[in-house]
């Protein structure tokens, strides 16, 4: 190979590498990014059981039930619809009824949302940002009226 050919092949190799990396990145974004839903969206969104999503809303009052062991069941609501969630693990310190949460997981065959993570922020007036934005947009919740 001449020097020019060599250089070209190095550049081509580099480009192929970058192309592959870009392709992989966008494939991964399509496959692995999880969308955020509120309960009311779920009727319009078509979800397969097992598809990972993030579900956000308020923990409905009076729905938190502690099952055997560390399994907890509760409903997440946006004051229009509510969704039953089951979660095994330790709830975050600021998990409370009436507070905003974001859960991540997927629906099982019975339509129960099985969460593998539950997020509630470490702050007293916290409402997860996604949830707050949506509730505000729908006029359900306004800022600094939590008391």
């Amino acid at each position, binding site marked *: 190979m001449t020097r020019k050919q060599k250089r070209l092949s190095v550049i081509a190799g580099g480009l192929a590498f970058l192309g592959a990396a870009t392709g992989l990145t966008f494939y991964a974004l399509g496959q692995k990014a999880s969308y955020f839903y509120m309960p009311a969206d779920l009727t319009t969104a078509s979800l397969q059981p097992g598809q990972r999503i993030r579900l956000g809303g308020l923990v*409905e*009052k*009076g729905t938190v039930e502690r099952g055997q062991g560390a399994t907890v069941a509760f409903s997440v609501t946006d004051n229009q619809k509510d969704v039953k969630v089951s979660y095994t693990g330790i709830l975050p310190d600021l998990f409370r009824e009436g507070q905003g949460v974001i859960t991540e997981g997927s629906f099982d065959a019975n339509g129960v949302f099985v969460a593998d993570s539950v997020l509630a922020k470490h702050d007293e007036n916290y409402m997860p940002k996604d949830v707050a934005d949506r509730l505000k947009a729908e006029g359900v919740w306004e800022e600094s009226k939590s*008391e």
Partner: protein
Amino acid sequence: MLFWVIAAILTLGASLAVLLPLAGGSKGASSSGDHDLEVYRDQLSELDRDAARGLIQPAEATEARAEIARRILRLDNAEVGGEASARRASVAARLVATAAVLVVPIVSWGLYSQLGSPDLPSQPLSERLAKNPADSSVDELVARAEAHLAANPSDGRGWDVLAPVYLRMQRFSDAAAAYRNAIRLDGDSADRQAGLGEAIASAAGGIVSADAQDAFEAALKLDPANAKASFYLAVALAQEGRGQEAVTAWQAMLGKLSPDSPWRSAVEQALAKSGSPEIASGSTANGPGAGDIDAASAMSPADREAMINTMVAGLDDKLRQNPRDAEGWMRLVRSYVVLGKADQARDALGRAIAVFGADSDEAKKFTAFAASLGLTATE
């Protein structure tokens, strides 16, 4: 004054940092070409050291040496021109220098006069607490007591003194904790139990919860004549919808209270309220803490009404946010009736029924409750 002296010294120092180099003599500087040459020489000697140590193969060392030599050659080629433009810019330089020296004091004093509060001294907490108690505000006295109790947490008397102060300051959960500490350390007393009950109830917005009720009952056991405990237990009855029993309890209280008791007027007020269809609405049972009531009684009627209106509005908002609170809805409906806002009361009733569904038990309870207030739901 001291501050201005320090500020002036700092400004002077900063200006000197600009001024001195400008006034200083021009130091001889090497051209960058010389500089690079030195770096390459260093690299050459480093290379020799590496080669001597056997870190680099002789062949590689020769190649590297040739490489550095090439760089030095390239350097010589590049070293052309440059030195010419030195003098002609001295006017511009002088302008920049003058501006620079002026910028420091002008920007700093100008900006500080906008942002700073030069008259405000530092106020370390320890100094503020060391002041003569007579000059201290209530807040400062409380802080002093807190500091004392933080150091001596087993001083039961201290907690006992602090607890009612917290209650007056509307720091209800602190008050409850302080009463608990006092009870734990200095033992039970009717006053402490009653205070604890009041703190818990006030923290819950006036609702006499089971915890509060326990405390009041404990107080009555220790002192059957404790007025605060009797009063609140009657309030609890009223809140449970047992209005008649509450009235009986209050009337019994009136009989026992001495004529100059401060509780007399509270009881009379409660009784007066309970005479109307709804029960005890103006009393503590309506939601505000004891402190709010104290504040309300010291207000002009117009202010008081405004305050009550805000509280009711607050409750309304809370229910919009957390609608599944049957007791809250009943309080809201009742409050609107008391305020004479029948339309809003009806609206609230409608919303309450909508939340739980028209067929639910709660809805029936609401309708019955509203009827007892003389209100009918108009669809």
